[in-house]
Each structure stands twice: as C-alpha cells, then as structure tokens.
C-alpha cells in the first residue's frame, strides 16, 4: 500500500466522520535509493538539439519545449508554464508557479530566443483570444485542457521527437536527459548540490545529487569554466 493512498484513505474517513485523526500523517517509510542511472545530454548534443530539433521549418513548439527542459523544468512545469511567466527583457522564466517548487531561472540567449519565437507564434495564432496569463508557452493548449494522465506523455513525446529529429539516439538518452543535463551543467559551474536543487526545484539534496553523473563531469565539466565562477 502506498503511503499517499493510506493518507488519502484516512482523509476520506475523517471526512465521513469515521475517524478523528490521520494516523498515517506522521508515518515515515524507509526509502530505498533509486536505481535510475543519469544519462545527461552532452553539450554537443544540447547544441544540436537547439539547432536541429524542429519538425518543420516553422516549428516553435519543440524548440520551446526543449529550451525549458534544458533549464531543468519537469514535464509538468513545461506544460504549465504560460507566456506571462517569461520575462523577455530580463531573460528569466518563472517555473512551477502554482507549486511548492516555484522559482525563477535565468536563461541564456538561445533559450530566450526560442521562447520569444514561440510567443510570437502563439500570439499570432491566438489573435483576438490572446491572453498571456493562460496561453501556454510550450504546449498547444492550456494544461487544464488536457487529461491529467496525458500531460506528461505529451511533453515527453515533444521532447522525444525533437531528440530524434536532432539525431540524438544514444543508449540511455530519453526526454529526462535534458533535465539531467541542466543539473550537471549547474553542478559543473558551481560545484554545489544546493544550486542544483535550487535550479531544478528539488527539495531533497540527495535526489539532486543522484542526477549528477561523474563521468559527464569528468568529460565535460571543463566546458563550463572553473567551479565557483558561476
């Protein structure tokens, strides 16, 4: 039985006045370490994903989706980011606005350009119905218009297509590799797991550290300058 399900069951019992308190609220379960091995994209693959990840010459969706993923956004954050979250003048984007992990991430020029191009298209497509507070940045429709269980597959499919179009088909590479790249890039720059957790919106430092690939750091860490230089 999952702990979350147990807690929900208690909540239902409380609502039905069959129980007074949630006895599962303080229960702690010993976690087993994740056996997922990180396969972050290499800087060369990231460059190619930015350059050649389009499905057609006018495609702005996949570049925007990839740009957000490369900043460390989760699938849900990519889906729920709206136009108003992007500050083009400041080169920043606010991720996870409605969640506990809300944060502002600074963007590089290429990412800002990809998002700006997407906004131009979305604005043109929306015409009179233009509303920056609801227009999604990297989805066709607002996240609420999707079924709950189809949001992550939609984002995942967009990223998979972009990766395939860019010819990135290494064993182990999957859409999550974009986020793993963001984690490793931050770690290569600062050498601090706290910064990784902050950029990716991860509460647990252990979880953030599990995204760091030592082999990647050894091969590509020098590309991001000496540690601590930001």
């Amino acid at each position: 039985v999952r702990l979350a399900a147990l807690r929900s069951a208690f909540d239902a019992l409380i609502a039905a006045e069959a129980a007074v308190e949630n006895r599962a609220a303080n229960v702690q379960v010993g976690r087993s370490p994740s056996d997922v091995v990180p396969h972050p994209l290499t800087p060369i693959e990231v460059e190619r994903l930015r350059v050649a990840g389009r499905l057609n010459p006018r495609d702005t969706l996949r570049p925007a989706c990839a740009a957000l993923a490369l900043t460390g956004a989760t699938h849900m954050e990519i889906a729920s980011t709206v136009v108003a979250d992007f500050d083009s003048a400041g080169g920043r984007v606010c991720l996870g606005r409605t969640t506990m992990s809300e944060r502002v991430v600074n963007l590089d020029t290429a990412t800002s350009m990809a998002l700006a191009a997407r906004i131009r298209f979305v604005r043109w497509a929306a015409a009179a119905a233009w509303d920056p507070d609801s227009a999604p940045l990297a989805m066709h429709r607002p996240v609420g218009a999707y079924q709950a269980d189809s949001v992550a597959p939609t984002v995942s499919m967009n990223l998979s297509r972009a990766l395939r179009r860019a010819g990135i088909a290494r064993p182990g590479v999957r859409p999550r590799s974009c986020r793993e790249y963001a984690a490793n890039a931050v770690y290569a720059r600062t050498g601090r797991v706290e910064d990784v957790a902050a950029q990716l919106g991860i509460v647990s430092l252990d979880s953030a550290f599990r995204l760091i690939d030592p082999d990647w750091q050894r091969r590509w860490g020098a590309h991001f300058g000496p540690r601590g230089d930001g």
Partner: protein
Amino acid sequence: MARRSSRAAGPRELRGSGGGGSTAVSVVAQSQRQRRATAGSHVARMRAIASDPHLHALAAHVSVANRRDHRVGGRPSAYPDWCLLVFGAGIRVFGSASATARALAEPAVWGEVVNAAAAVVDTQAAAELPPVGPNRDHWAYFLKRRLNPEALAELAARQRELGVERAREVGLLDPDAAYSAGGYHRDQVVGLDGKVFSSPLRTLDAERVDKATGEFRPVRQDPARQRYGEAGVDGIVWGTKFAIASVRSPLANHRVILGVAHFDAATPGGEGRVFTQLALDLAARAPGIQAFTADGAWRGTHLNQIQAATGCGVIAPPRRRTRRNGGIVIGGHGHAAQPLPWSRRRQQREAACGGHQLWAAAGTLFEQTIAVDGEPVLRELTRHQTKRDTTRRKDGSDRHQFYARYTLPCPGHPDHDWWEPLLATGDDAMAGFNRCEYLRVVPATGPHHRRLYGMRQDTESLNAQLERAFYGQRLPAWGVHNQTAVVLLAAVAENAWARHVWNHEAQRQRSADAA
C-alpha cells in the same frame, strides 16, 4: 563502349540506326512553314502507315495467333490482317471507323494504300486484294474474332518492342550519346502521362424516351467508362484512361510512342504503379533512355524504384506544401520539407561544430539558421555535381545510386563538403525519411528543371493530337478491348508518321547539303 561527345560545335545531330544503315539528321531550327508541312495530309499518312514494316510485323503476329487447322473449314478472309490493321490505324487519321470505311471505299485512296504496302508485302498478294478497302463489318469482325484479348495483349507487348526499335531508327534514344546526370537531352527523355479519352457515350442516362412513341429504350452502355479527375478540366471526365510513354526530338511531328497501357480506378497501385511498370519495361528494352519525366503521379517510392533499378533520372514536380502547414516558400511556391536525417557519416562530419539544421525540400538541401531577431532564415546549399554509381549484385542485376556534392559553410570551422545520396539509404527507413520525395536528381530550384520538366508538359501536345484526331474528341470504340485496340493502332500510326518525317527531313537535309 565509346561515347560520342555532346560538345561538338553546331546543331545537335541525331543518328538513326534503321534501314540497314545509319542516317544522320541535324536538329536545326525549323520555320513555321516547315513545321506545319510535317503535319502531312490524310493520304500521306495512310501511305506512311501502309508502308511501315512495323505494321506488317504486327499483322504477322495476329495471323500467327489466329492460325488454325485447315480442316476446320470456314470462309477465307476477305482481307489479310495487315489491311485491318491499316483500317484501325486509319481511325487515327480519319477520326472514326465510319469515316475510315468511307475513305477506303474510294478506289483512289485504297489504291494508294495498296501501292504503298506493295513495298513491304508480296506484290502478287497486293494485286489480288479487292478494289476497295475493308468496311466497318470487317473491322468489327476483326476486333471480335481475330484480335482476341490474348492476341491484343501480345500485340501491346510487341508494339513496345517495335516502338523502341522505331525510336532508334529515327535517331531517338541513342545508347551511345554522352550525357551527364541531370543534363539530359530531349531526344532521350521519355515522357509518361495518363490520358483520359472521353467515352463515346455522351449521357449518364440508362434509358432514353422515344419521342415518337413515348417508349423507354435502353441506351448502349460503355463498360469501360469511369469517372476521372483531369487537370485543366473543370469537374470530372467520364472516359477510359491510358498511360502513354513517348519520346521526341525538337523537330516537329518527330515523336515515337513507346508504349500504351490501359488502367482504371481499380488497378492496384493506381496511375503511379502503372507508370512505374511501363517505365521499368521500357528501360529494360531501351538502353538509350537517359531519364523519365512524369507528373505528380510518381511519389518518392516510385522514383526510388525506377532510379535505383534503371539508373535513369526522373524529372517530376516536387512535393508542395503551404508555408502555413510547414512548407518552405521558394520562388512563390510552398514546398514540403523534411529534416535531413542524421546518418553516421553526418554525425561524424558535424561532430566538431555541433551540427546544422538541414532541410530537404524542392529536390535539394536548405540550411536553417536563426537571425538576431529570432526569425528563421533558410538558405539553399550549393550543389556542385551530380553523379551516378552502379553496384553489381550477386544475382547479376545492377543497383544504381545517385549522389549530389554539397558544400556547407560553417562559421569557425572548415566548410563541410560531402556527397549526399539522392536515393534511399539504409538509415532512411529508421528515420522515416522518404528521400526521393524530397531530394531529386534535378532539383526544382536548379537551372535544368524548367527545361526538363517542359518535356513532360510537351506530352500534353500528344494527348491533344490524339484527342482531336477522333470524331467529337471521343474515342470511337466501346469497351476496354476495342478502345485499347484503337489507341494502340493510333500509336502505330504516330510511329509510322515519325518514320516518314524522319526520312523526309533526312532527304531534305541531304539535298540542301548537296546544293
């Protein structure tokens, strides 16, 4: 085999190989008067048909197919088979079987036909012919009994063989002529096109009222009639459809029909597959074919099949798509684009620089970059050369591959320079890339495409000639069998006239040189 240079000074020269020797004709510019003179007259065309050895070869084929035991008995034929083939080919000249019968009923016309045929057939046999030509009853009997479906199928195959032979005879499809991949000559490019001949039946009604009696009477139906969409015609066309392959030179009326195939809406694979089968058949018969040209019926799969199997280039219009739907606009037209897949070679080539966004569209490659304002910019890559490689398989067959050499400037790195395959490769299937749909031997943006695709448009003049040849611009025959026979014999008539035009032009040029 040594190939003649195509860079000789002066007008291009065509060399015919028929008649036991070679004849040369220079492709000189013809005046309007000279061009019109090649149209000839009805009698001249009938003479050309009757004196054509190929018609008599086909007649011999019919006679052999109908040979039967003498003991069975029956009335002897009033006319030998060649007379009925002349009658059938005459429908192309006079417009209908009825008009042909009337013309051949004239002793003067029939006498011309017999005299012309005497050069090919036995003089004694020609002298024993009736004083007037066959009539419609003879023609109807011939179609029904002598030219049975099996004989007609064999006749169609034999006609292709003779068509290729005729092309060589009149200086077309020269296998020794030099050429480069993409720089094809008009007399060696075969044009394929589908032609819907209007049915003789002009109404959709199954019954008609007799105005005198008020009685409903059934209307004769054409079982071959179907509905087809036709370019350049509003709505639809009711008729019967044929694939026609032809080759010509710039000289007026110097065109040879290489093959004819009937098909309809139920034919598996549709027009594209019928054209493909016809092209493969012709390429196997005629080594002088350099290229085929056809309209949009051929998609990437067909192009790959033909080019890989025959080594002949194919000139076809590129796939279109509007800009709104993701196409690339070139010269005012939107073209469908697909990203060039990442083969192992490409990965290695672009490993140092990170890679480029390359699109295959309009038969060539484009690079997409992002301008400082964030707008995508497309730039066509320079294509330098196109070449063809041939690989001999274990079973003895050949497989051809075309390559184009491209250069891609790469800021901060040496320029990329490589040979891009133009036919399907092993990696394409995995990437879901239909290579021949987007990359062509002759790209639509290149200087040759307009000239070469004009050769496809030129087949429309043959279609128009055939259509206008028949009375009321309707095929004067009912049912697939009869209609195929009429169209096949119209092709024989065209080829006979091409021979006449060739001989006439050769003689004219010889006389001019002598003078």
